[in-house]
């Protein structure tokens, strides 16, 4: 029986408590992704082995981290900045 499992005395049914996640669950998710990436990387023409794509992804990752920090600084003004950016991104289409 799992740590998060108990038997309901009335019905005799096993119940798993969803609110008590395993402390390693996040790690397991991450490993599941990486395992899949490994699986694809072993194929010769995999996009995961593409220097260009890996560079772009790395750059965007850094940009996203920066953007999250800027969001914190902007506070309530964030929405106004988003509206302006969105208009710019749709401009000329």
């Amino acid at each position, binding site marked *: 029986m799992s740590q998060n499992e108990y038997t309901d005395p009335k019905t005799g049914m096993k119940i798993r408590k969803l609110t008590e996640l395993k402390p390693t669950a996040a790690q397991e998710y991450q490993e599941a992704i990486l395992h899949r990436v490994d699986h694809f990387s072993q194929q010769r023409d995999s996009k995961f082995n593409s220097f260009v794509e890996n560079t772009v*992804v790395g750059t965007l*990752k850094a940009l996203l981290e920066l953007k999250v920090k800027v969001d914190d600084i902007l506070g309530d003004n964030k929405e106004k900045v988003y509206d302006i950016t969105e208009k710019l991104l749709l401009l000329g289409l």
Partner: protein
Amino acid sequence: MYHIDGSDFLKTPYYQKVGSVCPECLQKIQAEIYEEDDEIWMRKTCSEHGDFKDKISSSAKYYKWTHYKTDEWGFDKDGEPNPPDCEATDPRGCPYNCGLCPEHLSTCSLALIDLTNRCNFNCNFCYANIEKSGYLVEPSLEDLERVIIFFRSKPIPPPAVMFTGGEPTVRKDFAEICALAKKHGFKEIIVATNGYGFQQKKGGLEWTKKVYEAGLDTLYLQFDGINDITYEKTRGIKNLMAYKERVIENCRKADLTSIVLVATIAKGVTDIEVGNIIQYAIDNIDVVRGITFQPVALCGRITAEEAQDLRITNADVIKEIDKQTGGKISIDSAWYPLSTIVEWGRIIAYLADVEPVEFTCHPDCGFATYLVIDPDTNEMVPIMDYFDPFKIIEFANKFWPKIKHKEKEPIKLFENLLGDFGKTLDKGVNWLDKQQLRARFLLAMMQYTKKPGKLMEMFTRVLMDGNWESISAFTHGTLLISSMHFQDAYNMNLERVKRCIVHFGIAMPDGSVKEISFCTMNTFYRPDIEKLVAKQLTEKMRNEFDTSKGMKAEEIKHDIAHNGGELEED
């Protein structure tokens, strides 16, 4: 809830007239969908068989949200259908002309092919079973190839195929069938299974490895809960949990790491298990990719009272999930109709030059959410905590109408002036144009992303090229939970039928292939079509399985021999 709070639409009682059928004679009749006591109901009257009433949703508010339209929102999406396969010869129209007729509004995103109606189980609510039909329906390899080619040669081909039954894995040539589907270009090969082939005590692991190597990608594993007693009620077989765990274990060992747990939800029988199933999926996240809850469809003739006793709606399922997860997957914020991502999907397909997957089904057909374990808090959260889904979808809904013309009319600046050399230059111009569109879309998506991390890295790859690798890696870090409510004659709404995206393909004796939407196949067409393609049963087939045990009859004899001539009680 979402963006409907405070709107006049929410305050006004819901009412709509739709086409439906009489559950008794299956003739077309009008139905009214209306609101009563915070629930949504359907009522209809057949001049011959009287009045019928059925629950459509146990949450009027949620239902109304999925039918709410603004300039930038709406879940009722126009589909991009493939050209019709037949003329509508029956004057009554939909649903009597299936195959597909010009009234159909969506293309097929998941092709279904029945491999057999043989099964090692004998579930009382199942429509495909030799025990009940008295005949065998098992297309040959040649027939199956004909259906596979039919689907893949459509202008918009479905990317995924699901083999169904009966129990598809009882076929000895199952690996060959998977390889055939892969050879003809299906990206995702799925089997809807109770786990038979995978769980075999002798040779189950080798069998699992063999079908994985042949091309099988995903199991839709029948999984009603974690309690043996639940399976006894739903399948009439004792000790089935050990059987299910053997499937999971063999898939894990064979590296077949894409299992979707499929639970048929019936009121008072399996609804108690929804939280258990979610936790079981999380505990096995290395191999489980998702859960599909399917409120039971009432195929077959039952009384109106029985129908109401058993009826459970998508809203009931997501309310139950809300309750059993302590509000972590809330009905108020986590769930979206499948059609939500239509424009978003089209943008990805266009920018990444990949086949589109069109989820233009009716908003009542299904809801979904992605779950993620947040590495910072170790809490399970809907993926909405990582994005601002409203803003992302709103942007996609604005972006797609502005760029969709480019898909059909590429830029032609130089072709008329410079001939073939101009064509080459235009190719370059179009490539540059696509890069700037990609950059705009990526930046917009980033703007509405809240957290960095490995998951976001995979999501960035999906946005960059939308190829199968990136989608697959992204889904390995998340748990997709969906609730799909298939229709029956009691709750049939013909608007849903016209937008169905899950289609059966059947090889007909005259050499043609019929494509029929899921709900009409089971309600209208199955018995007649099966009789056309049926083969005679042999005594050997009838006695192949002991369906009260789910085992081959010869295995049971072997067990008895091992047990001193006595049948061992589980």
